[in-house]
């Protein structure tokens, strides 16, 4: 009898922490008809293109209108040497509510830090001195690193093998969309799903 209680005591704080982080990296209405999980790598050029060119439209047409709930998932690829470090800073900044700001600057300046490895300097450029200290410390926190690992494992379970991948979920059915996106086709697909 005691065993399940101990198990719950051990697991509940971890679940609560994960849910809190998810909210910091999620946008829109959690009860929206569509859930979109975006598995992305900060050093991947196609992810940069998606973030800068198509994501603003997805936010405008689906997330801000309550049609979709967007959740960012980290999926740093082993072939990108600075991707995991960038993901750590992004997740750390999510803990202080600055995920979108840091994600924006990481993608905008990707060609530069991917070349010179100055990931922290890039992140720091959009943070206040107090936030910089917090983010720097949090980026080494095992719970933040564990969160990245959880996202990666989740992606592997979903058999995601490229970035960016949008995992669109509607009524429990999952539709992975990988690679570059044609927004017109994506819009037709999402509208079609919502109408069903």
């Amino acid at each position, binding site marked *: 009898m005691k065993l399940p209680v101990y198990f719950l005591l051990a697991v509940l704080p971890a679940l609560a922490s994960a849910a809190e982080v998810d909210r910091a990296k999620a946008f829109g209405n959690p009860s929206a008809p569509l859930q979109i999980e975006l598995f992305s790598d900060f050093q991947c050029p196609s992810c940069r293109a998606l973030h800068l060119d198509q994501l603003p439209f997805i936010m405008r047409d689906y997330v801000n209108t309550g049609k979709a709930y967007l959740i960012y998932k980290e999926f740093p690829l082993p072939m990108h040497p600075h991707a995991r470090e960038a993901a750590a800073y992004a997740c750390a900044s999510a803990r202080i509510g600055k995920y979108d700001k840091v994600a924006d600057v990481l993608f905008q300046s990707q060609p530069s830090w991917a070349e010179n490895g100055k990931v922290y300097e890039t992140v720091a450029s959009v943070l206040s001195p107090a936030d910089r200290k917090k983010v720097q410390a949090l980026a080494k926190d095992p719970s933040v690193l564990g969160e990245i690992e959880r996202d990666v494992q989740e992606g592997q379970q979903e058999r995601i*093998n490229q970035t960016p991948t949008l995992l669109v979920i509607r009524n429990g059915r999952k*539709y992975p*969309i*990988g690679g570059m996106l*044609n927004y017109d*086709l994506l819009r037709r697909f999402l509208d079609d799903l919502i109408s069903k």
Partner: protein
Amino acid sequence: MTSSRNKALTIFVWLVRLALGGIFIFAAWSKLKDPYLLFAMAIDNYKVLPQWAVLAVARTLPWFELLLGLVLLTGRLPRISSAAASALLLLFFGLMVRVYAKGETIDCGCFGPGEAISPATLARDGSLLAGALVLTGLSFRRRRPKSRYVPSPIPDGAATDQAHF
């Protein structure tokens, strides 16, 4: 000697045809079970067709694959079905090689979504293409009256094995 060789060849051809037919049917099913726009996005990633053609191909190609798979399985129209399979696989393989050579990472679109083009997908589609080409070569070759696989003239109505290629 020639007869046993003919038998072995017939079995080989049937095996290749069953494998190709089964794979085409599976490929069709994996696309038809999802909304066609999902496949349209995979086709669009190859950047070879305008959007109206992408939508047309996304709607029709899975049905064509299904039909081709069924024809291959039944053994009807051996020349047409094997040549169509070869042409289709040659087109798919060529497009995949082109994308891979350019260093792009996109969805293959071969068996539904979620499979990026990689050396493994190229090896798989290359093997299918090789099988289809062999099948096409044999189906045309065996129709020749003086082929070494058909050494003597065959009486009318007795060439049942040929009808199955």
